[in-house]
């Protein structure tokens, strides 16, 4: 990554509450809604089926990022995508 900086507006006194890992402070229930998992999908069930199983177990909205015909790994996006 090239070195990028955060530029603040001149008149603004507000500064970021910068923690490099914002997610460690999130409660797990909240975190689950804004996270993804990289899943090693077995051969057989479709991506849709796997997403539906996780949705049922975790009781949160789940979607996946892409289907192949017979799939390998797919990132699953949990939460409001």
């Amino acid at each position, binding site marked *: *990554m*090239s070195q*990028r*900086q*955060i*530029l*603040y*507006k*001149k008149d*603004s006194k*507000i*500064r*970021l*509450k*910068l*923690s*490099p890992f*914002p*997610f460690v*402070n*999130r409660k*797990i229930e909240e*975190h*689950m809604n*804004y*996270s*993804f*998992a*990289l*899943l*090693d*999908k*077995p*051969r057989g069930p479709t991506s849709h089926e*796997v997403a539906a*199983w*996780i949705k049922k*177990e*975790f009781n949160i909205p789940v979607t996946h*990022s*892409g289907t*192949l*015909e*017979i*799939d*390998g*790994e*797919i*990132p699953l*996006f*949990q*939460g*409001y*995508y």
Partner: protein
Amino acid sequence: MQLHEEVSEERLKETIKLFVGKIYQKPPLRSAVKKAPRIRKIYSIDILDIKGRNVLMEVRCEAGTYVRKLCFDIGEVLGSGAHMTELRRTAIAFLKEDYEYLATLHELFGAYRYWKKYGDERYLRFYLRPIEELLFFLPKVFIKETALFSVTHGSFVAVPAIVGVTSDLKPKQLVGVYNLNNEIIALGRAEMDAKTAIESEKGIVLKIDKVLRVYEREEQ
């Protein structure tokens, strides 16, 4: 890929070379997209193993490439015919199979149930990665807390609403909109570069494409 006739390794390699680069593909009959030929880029094809008529290949290709069709087309050019027998996605964007947090279904379910049963969330946090981790390469625009409601309900992000931007912000680019805790709340298209955004008095910095986190109006 399974060939329908014996083909010499040399000829196979020569033929596969023809498929690297930009190729025309006609989506198969049963497909989700319009069935007109389109161009897809194949970055590389490496033969990993050959056993009889079975060929194991690693294909690096553009999104939307039909690999089953690719195998079929290779078979057509060879004259022998061929079809795809198995397919596995080994990488997507910068995520690879050796990704530390790659989980099986059992591991993911196990981690969830362990938390439910014993209240230990460590394993669940290990596999569930924050969405910010996927989008680290996007320029960022940080907005004030008072603007969170309107921005997540469809309003453009204007100069008075922002606190700061990262220096790599450029017009027309996809950018992430962040709150002051460095959490992503939306994705949008930039209308300004970084310098203009922090020096202007007014104007639109970006237009929202997708809201990822909805904020409700604060109680009065």
